């Protein structure tokens, strides 16, 4: 191709290869070239994501570490932050407002702290999800990786954050007379199910937030409403005793309330199965499967469009 005039460009511009007389698509097919940036099949996508598992984990841990790297106390804040949180809630709701209506004091404090930590896990996963793509456009436009790595990585970061909070939670539970026993093993399945649910939400909001970054401003209000409706600081059946039964049922079956209640059931000595709605485990599993699978497919459907400004 020694022609350097406009003609050479124009000849190419019609999509015809100069030597073969083939169209661009034909030439591509002949040499096995594929469309750049096309969306892979769902199975292929899962495989690519699996290949990137080390990146997903490393990225989430890096984010977690970077969070407190400028503080003098450094990583100690991983535990100190939830501890201070728990202290504030204990002071306001336990000592001043005495919102423990119908619950023993020894049950109420761990009840409250569990609620706050478990809900924060979902809340921060959603908020991180909204910004997962829209806040990392530089990364999305510079490197190649399945985009789902980002929301999954952010959800994983929140899980690790929660694991630090669990240290505080165990201490609070023990301080109020709930000692480690076999039922504490149930914490593991609860965490797994809630993590799946949160990852699904993060994926859904990552796609929504990539199209509408305004969600970052709107979601805090939605999340706060959700928090008050899920019984973080009060027991739903006791508080809504004089309201219609269906209302309490609906609130109790919402995923945030289910995961909180199951965690309390596993952890707290005086919080028995009579506080759980019927089929609590099945509902918890159902929410996790529905949101995780649905969210994943929903996110994958727009894979080739992330990164557009």
């Amino acid at each position, binding site marked *: *191709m*020694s*022609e*350097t005039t*406009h003609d*050479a*460009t124009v000849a*190419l*511009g*019609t*999509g015809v*290869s*100069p*030597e*073969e007389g083939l169209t*661009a*698509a034909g*030439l*591509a097919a002949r*040499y*096995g*070239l*594929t*469309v*750049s*940036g*096309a969306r892979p099949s769902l199975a292929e996508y899962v495989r690519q994501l699996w*290949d*990137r598992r*080390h*990146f997903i984990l*490393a*990225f989430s841990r*890096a*984010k977690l*570490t*970077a969070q407190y*790297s*400028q503080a003098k106390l450094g990583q100690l804040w991983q535990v100190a932050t939830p501890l201070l949180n728990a202290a504030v809630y204990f002071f306001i709701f336990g000592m001043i407002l005495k919102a423990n209506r119908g619950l023993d004091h020894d049950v109420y404090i761990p009840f409250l702290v569990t609620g706050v930590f478990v809900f924060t896990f979902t809340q921060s996963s959603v908020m991180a999800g909204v910004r997962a793509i829209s806040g*990392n456009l*530089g*990364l*999305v*436009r*510079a*490197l*190649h*990786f399945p985009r789902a790595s980002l929301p999954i990585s952010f959800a994983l970061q929140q899980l690790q954050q929660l694991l630090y909070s669990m240290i505080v939670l165990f201490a609070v539970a023990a301080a109020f007379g709930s000692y480690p026993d076999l039922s504490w093993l149930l914490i593991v399945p609860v965490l797994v199910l809630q993590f799946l649910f949160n990852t699904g939400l993060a994926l859904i909001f990552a796609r929504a937030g990539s199209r509408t*970054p305004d969600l970052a401003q709107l979601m805090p209000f939605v999340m706060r409403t959700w928090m008050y409706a899920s019984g973080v600081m009060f027991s739903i059946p006791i508080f809504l005793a004089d309201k219609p039964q269906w209302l309490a049922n609906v609130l109790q079956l919402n995923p945030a309330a289910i995961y909180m209640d199951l965690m309390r059931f596993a952890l707290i000595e005086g919080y028995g199965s009579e506080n759980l709605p019927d089929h609590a485990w099945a509902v918890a599993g159902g929410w996790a499967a529905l949101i995780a699978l649905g969210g994943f497919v929903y996110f994958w459907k727009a894979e*080739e*469009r992330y*990164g*557009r*400004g």
Partner: protein
Amino acid sequence: MAEQHEERIPTVIADELHIVYRVHGAKTGKGSATAALSRILKRGEERGVRKVHAVKGVSFVAYRGEAIGLIGSNGSGKSTLLRAIAGLLPAESGRVYTNGQPSLLGVNAALMNDLTGERNVILGGLAMGMSREQIKERYQGIVDFSGINEKGDFITLPMRTYSSGMAARLRFSIAAAKDHDVLMIDEALATGDRKFQIRSEERIRELRKQAGTVFLVSHSNKSIRDTCDRVLWLERGELRLDGPTEEVLKEYEKFTGK
């Protein structure tokens, strides 16, 4: 032609490629809340969004073994075109066909200033798709190449403590550690001090040899002359000339009045 001693195998085919950016909140000069509200209330197509047509109908075929330079004034669409070839920016219309996965040389976006250089080497490597074993194998090479540790044990300090030159050297060293089929370099040559520049130019020549096809965006006509045998000249998103380096550069220099 095809049966000459070496068959020309296409690695990248761009076919009538158009790229359009959508910029939110840039429709009017007014950025006040009331202006934004009135934009929302005024019904119309894509309120408050301004379109920037960055690449307009570019077509070309790149072959294995070619080193292609992209030139043009600032904002002519060079970097955008590279990102589109890499499949990182979705095309408005038209297509790019590639052999394997083209990659941009650069990991800046994946690195975190609050982490140590050591962890950034690992994170950057993973972000580029290297395996843990590959990174372990090349770790020492990356650190030695960057020369970060020449003046003390800096690799275990957070990157925010580095001078801008040191950070740029580490970033280049990480990015250049991976082999690529189709490699794209966006003005990466001008980093660090003179000594490091020579070393990085050498490394780019090495990468060129391993890679099937190389794209280089640069404003330095000298580095284009040194590395490329073919040049695409973009102006206002359109492909103005496509041909051997000397001929296109002669036209370009005439155009820029040099």
